[in-house]
């Protein structure tokens, strides 16, 4: 395996490594599209911070639909962001309807990535549930996080390889603790981390914290 430029890379669950710019991933391999539910408080807020911290700690850059401005064509902008990403991760743990209305954005965005034959990784909260909610993905083993941020970090660490040295789970947890503190500061200023500016500031800050901790 050649090591080019000390940049991190993603691996498939099956073990085949992604090249930096393979034929199926014309985007930057260090940009990772994060497809997940968003809420201002609660479980998915914690999980979002964990995905951001974990990816930043491994040398990757989280991207999100949160970057899409309300006045832009969401689908066109999604295409642009996804094209810029080398891989994606999809948290498919939200299966409940909100106020009786189910949300289809996450499976739709997963379908977009799958259709482009980009590398994608799936996270779920519960074992075996994906086989029922999205049987088209049978054969793809999701990472099970159980709603726990440390399991998110462990899953990311399995899937995304940092160069030259893979940080320990303990170091990623230390980074997460600090990114969580940063997220509260950003939230205090902007009311929420669910928004374009807040998300991009969180990603930028997480990357800076990772550097300060000598992770990247």
């Amino acid at each position, binding site marked *: 395996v050649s090591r080019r430029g000390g940049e991190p890379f993603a691996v498939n669950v099956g073990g085949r490594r992604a090249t930096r710019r393979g034929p199926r991933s014309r985007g930057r391999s260090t940009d990772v599209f994060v497809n997940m539910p968003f809420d201002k408080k609660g479980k998915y807020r914690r999980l979002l911070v964990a995905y951001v911290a974990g990816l930043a700690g491994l040398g990757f850059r989280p991207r999100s639909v949160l970057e899409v401005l309300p006045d832009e064509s969401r689908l066109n902008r999604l295409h642009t962001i996804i094209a810029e990403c080398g891989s994606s991760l999809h948290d498919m743990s939200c299966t409940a309807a909100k106020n009786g209305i189910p949300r289809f954005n996450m499976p739709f965005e997963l379908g977009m990535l799958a259709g482009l034959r980009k590398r994608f990784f799936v996270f779920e909260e519960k074992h075996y549930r994906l086989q029922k909610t999205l049987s088209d993905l049978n054969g793809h083993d999701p990472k099970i996080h159980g709603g726990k941020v440390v399991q998110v970090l462990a899953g990311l660490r399995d899937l995304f390889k940092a160069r030259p040295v893979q940080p320990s789970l303990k170091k990623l947890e230390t980074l997460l603790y600090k990114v969580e503190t940063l997220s509260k*500061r950003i939230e205090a200023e902007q009311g929420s981390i669910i928004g374009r*500016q807040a998300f991009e500031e969180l990603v*930028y800050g997480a990357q800076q914290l990772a550097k300060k901790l000598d992770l990247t």
Partner: protein
Amino acid sequence: VTVGRPASSVGTLRLFGITPQRAAHIDELVDEIVDADGE
């Protein structure tokens, strides 16, 4: 002033959707957080 990760082989830095002033502010917050924990 640009911030963020290298975006291309020519060495330009991709500007996030945040202003340089906000980036400087986040840098300050990051320093505070690191210093507060004695890292």
